[in-house]
């Protein structure tokens, strides 16, 4: 069924509806309806994603000419994004009920939502940039919700990275806009490809969006911010918001013509490295949300590989894009379910609940690990298909690496399950339906979405009942078991723990050193300089002596002898001038 929906107001409502409750929040009387409506503000967007099956663009007289619309790529992104926003929103209503700061949370949640949905719907560069910025900055309010010192630090680092991202993106946008001569996003990849400043633009784009996407070494904010935020916000951050960076790449980078093997290879290498790096560091974490955050770094790395493929091999563009679409959807839902699950597990009180929650978490974790029949397996299949397009030596290595990455993911998921496994010793909370219902929906979606939607995906899913999908999970599971056994042994004292933020800490250490150098060397030098300046103020004192001398000179003019002499001298001079000159 195809429905054409071209009324601008409809599209505006998709991004504007979230702002409406946000505006109502300050009014005391309208506060609770606004809070009640919060999750459903994403409903129009979901509706558009479900109903609009053609490319549609509507124009609105906003900013520098706003264009909203959908293409197949963004439709997929909109679908999972809107879904997750609704689920997390419903979840948040219960999770944060009674929290003094819930009103503020709602405000930021809605603003972030508007930004996130808007950037997907945006079909022009300026609006895209606007919504991207809105999302990035508004999410700060979500991150620092708890207000503790550690959270504030995480928030600060998040904000700095967002701002840095802006600093790279804005010039990239400007260069792109000038190169394209239009703000239409359709024209952008070709314009970037044809621009004389292509390397500069691409570099700026990779870094600018890379920060949001948690790319290798640009991910430092991610393991800090995701655990710091309240659980529903973490789900959003990890599930949908980091995908915005990915979407940015897909919309702006010149995928297709021409072949850019160097850039492609770079992305592939960075992606694979991130995939393993995330797991390695994640394994050392003990907080379940930190583990999930590092898992996101790892998973985003895998998606970056697909991007690299598309960059390197123009013919593989469609394959790679499909892979990314499937993978992103899968990861968003799975990660959402996992994050929400952490909160649910915290509230478990009975053993029956414990069992059910455990099963749910296991399902989601297995999906992420890519167990056969799961959405993860489907996504990995697509990814693998895409990698075949790469020239030969790389192709084989890549598929091996991908399988190893699946092992690693399983390992990390095992670590996560161990960390999160509902613990009955903890004080019992009441597990309200507001928490478990949305979570259940998420888990069900993770488990079944590949079968609910296009038939094509379902067939792929059935094909994943293969050894190639099975063995990495099995190996991973074994390793987890072994590791668990080792870990529980009394003699085992080796418990590596890399602090969240990893390389950032190196940077901070470096800054600290610089600070010490400043205190030790620069400040004394500066003081010496200013002392010198004070000394030259003494010079000024001498100048006032000149002033006094001048004034005394005026006093001298008063005497008749001087005055008369001057008179005579002037007379003589004047005469000489008249006669001689």
């Amino acid at each position, binding site marked *: 069924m195809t429905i054409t929906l071209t009324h601008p107001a409809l599209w505006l409502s998709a991004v504007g509806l979230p702002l409406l409750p946000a505006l109502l929040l300050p009014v005391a009387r309208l506060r609770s309806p606004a809070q009640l409506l919060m999750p459903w503000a994403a409903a129009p967007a979901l509706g558009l994603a479900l109903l609009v099956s053609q490319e549609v663009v509507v124009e609105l007289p906003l900013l*520098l000419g706003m264009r909203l619309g959908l293409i197949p790529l963004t439709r997929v992104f909109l679908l999972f994004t809107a879904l997750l926003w609704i689920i997390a929103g419903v979840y948040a209503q219960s999770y944060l009920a009674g929290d003094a700061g819930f009103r503020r949370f709602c405000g930021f949640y809605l603003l972030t939502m508007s930004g996130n949905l808007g950037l997907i719907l945006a079909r022009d560069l300026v609006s895209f940039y606007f919504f991207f910025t809105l999302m990035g900055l508004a999410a700060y309010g979500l991150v620092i919700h708890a207000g503790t010192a550690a959270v504030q630090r995480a928030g600060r680092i998040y904000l700095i990275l967002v701002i840095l991202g802006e600093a790279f993106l804005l010039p990239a946008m*400007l260069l792109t806009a000038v190169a394209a001569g239009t703000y239409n996003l359709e024209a952008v990849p070709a314009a970037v490809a044809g621009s004389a400043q292509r390397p*500069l633009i691409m570099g700026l784009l990779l870094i600018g969006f890379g920060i949001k996407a948690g790319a290798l070494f640009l991910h430092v904010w991610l393991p800090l911010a995701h655990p710091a935020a309240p659980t529903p916000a973490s789900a959003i951050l990890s599930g949908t918001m980091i995908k915005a960076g990915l979407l940015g790449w897909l919309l702006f980078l010149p995928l297709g013509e021409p072949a850019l093997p160097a850039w492609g290879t770079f992305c592939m290498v960075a992606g694979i490295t991130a995939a393993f790096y995330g797991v390695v560091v994640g394994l050392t974490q003990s907080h379940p949300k930190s583990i999930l955050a590092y898992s996101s770094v790892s998973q985003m790395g895998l998606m970056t590989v697909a991007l690299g493929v598309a960059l390197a091999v123009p013919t593989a563009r469609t394959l790679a894009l499909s892979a990314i679409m499937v993978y992103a959807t899968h990861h968003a839902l799975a990660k959402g379910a996992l994050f929400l699950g952490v909160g649910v597990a915290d509230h478990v009180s009975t053993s029956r609940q414990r069992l059910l929650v455990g099963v749910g978490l296991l399902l989601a974790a297995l999906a992420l690990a890519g167990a056969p029949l799961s959405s993860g397996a489907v996504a990995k299949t697509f990814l693998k298909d895409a990698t075949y397009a790469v020239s030969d030596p790389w192709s084989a290595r890549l598929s091996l690496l991908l399988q190893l990455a699946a092992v690693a993911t399983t390992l990390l998921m095992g670590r996560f399950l161990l960390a999160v496994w509902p613990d009955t010793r903890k004080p019992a909370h009441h597990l309200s339906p507001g928490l478990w219902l949305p979570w259940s929906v998420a888990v069900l979606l993770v488990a079944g979405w590949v079968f609910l939607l296009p038939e094509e995906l379902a067939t792929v899913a059935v094909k994943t009942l293969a050894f190639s999908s099975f063995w990495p999970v099995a190996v991973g599971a074994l390793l987890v078991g072994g590791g668990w056994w080792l870990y529980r042994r009394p003699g085992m004292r080796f418990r590596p723990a890399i602090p969240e933020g990893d390389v950032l800490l190196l940077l901070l250490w470096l800054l600290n050193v610089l600070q010490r150098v400043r205190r030790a060397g620069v400040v004394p030098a500066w003081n010496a300089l200013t002392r010198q300046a004070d000394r030259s103020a003494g010079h000024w004192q001498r100048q006032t002596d000149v002033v006094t001398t001048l004034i005394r000179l005026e006093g001298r003019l008063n005497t008749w002898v001087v005055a008369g002499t001057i008179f005579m001298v002037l007379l003589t001079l004047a005469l000489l001038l008249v006669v001689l000159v």
Partner: protein
Amino acid sequence: MELSALIPLLVLASSILPSLLIFFLGEDRARLRIWLYLGAEIVKLLLVVFMLEGIYLGQSYETRIPLLPGVDFLLRANALAMLFLMLSAGLWLVTTIYAIGYMEELPYHGRFYGFFGLSVTSTAGLALAGNLFTFYFFYETLTLATYPLVVHRQTREALAAGRTYMRYAVAGGALLLLGVVWLQSLVGPVEFTEGGSLVGRNLNTSALVAIFALMIAGLGVKTALFPLHGWLPMAMIAPAPVSALVHAVAVVKAGAFGIVRVVYEVFGLGLCRQLGVLFPLSLVASTTIIYGSLRALVQDDLKRRLAYSTVSQLSYIVLGVAIVGTASTIGGIVHLMHQGIMKITLFFCAGILAHTLGITRISEMDGVGRRMPATMVAFSIAVFGMIGLPPFAGFISKWYLGMGAVEAGQIWSVAVLITSTLLNMAYFLPIVYAAWFKVPAVPFTEKLPPGRFETGPLLLAPALTTALLTLLFGLFAASDFSPLQWSALIAERELTTQPEVLGP
């Protein structure tokens, strides 16, 4: 006299007459004074809107009165003039409402409103000036009319600031005068002409460069170009409405507007490029942008931080002028309007804080957002605008400036813009953060008794209005009659006469 010649005079008269009248009203005739004043402002605004429509349709308004042999007092409205005129007339109304709420505790209302009106008159004169002489004329009267406002409190600090202000301003005026007279002695009276009035004349290059430098230096004092900016932070001693309108908008804009006039309508872009003066100008502007931001970073006094921010932001306009291109022209000119709206909001808010809670330092602002949410919303909007975040007005300016820089191949200017944006964030966001997210160390001690609103409604309404405008000007930039579209109209009229200029 024809109507079209009369209207510019009426625009001036609409503010000069009530101002002069107010000097002779008793200090206790507060009600009469206010009504007189507001009435005048509405008349002025109506006149300006009337003119605006006429200019849009291509009509011309010109008043010419010979003042000296060869020197005319010339008022002439064009699209560029209207932008500045609209800014000054619109903000005058808003600021007056604010001043009514603010001035209660300060003495000498008559004097204040009188000179305030005279300042606005000078600004209107600057906007409408049709030749260099008239521009200079109002440039100096603006100095004179603002001095009493700076020293209004009559404290030692205020008077010291007034002296500094006066010295800078008169020195700047002298340089401008030198440039104007020199040019006039070379080519006769110089009228502002879209596309440049010196186009097609064969003149000595080095003399022209010197004249250009003199004029820019003279105008640069009021624009607070580095290193001529020293007076601006000192002038912040004035009462808040003055800082808001006069020193964030009128005076500094007078300089920036003058630079726009000189570059586009006296020399013309083509000649400027030939003379090679634009690159140094863009360097000066860039230096100022960065320098102002760096200085702002370390100020704890709110108004001083805002003042240094003004130093920085004004040079955006100059930078836009110095980069040859349609987009940069639009960006620079539209920033005239946008910066005014945003900065006035910030100063309004700073004034509200000082007036209501006695807060003047940033370190005292922790948690103030809870006490005064509406004020801080306005403040935050203006801050976001200043930083250049979409969808606020500042983004539009910055976007066009950046596009212009890219078009002209001056990528380094983009780097300057980005650096400035980062610095803007560095000195503005901590304020916003402290206001919303921190907890006040000590409870606020109110200077103003709490009323129905968080502060006097006359104080709050102007701040919210300009904050709203900041949003609207950005959000609806693409619609007709937005400042952006008007600037595009100006740019079109300024640049179409010389299409060859715009090549790289």
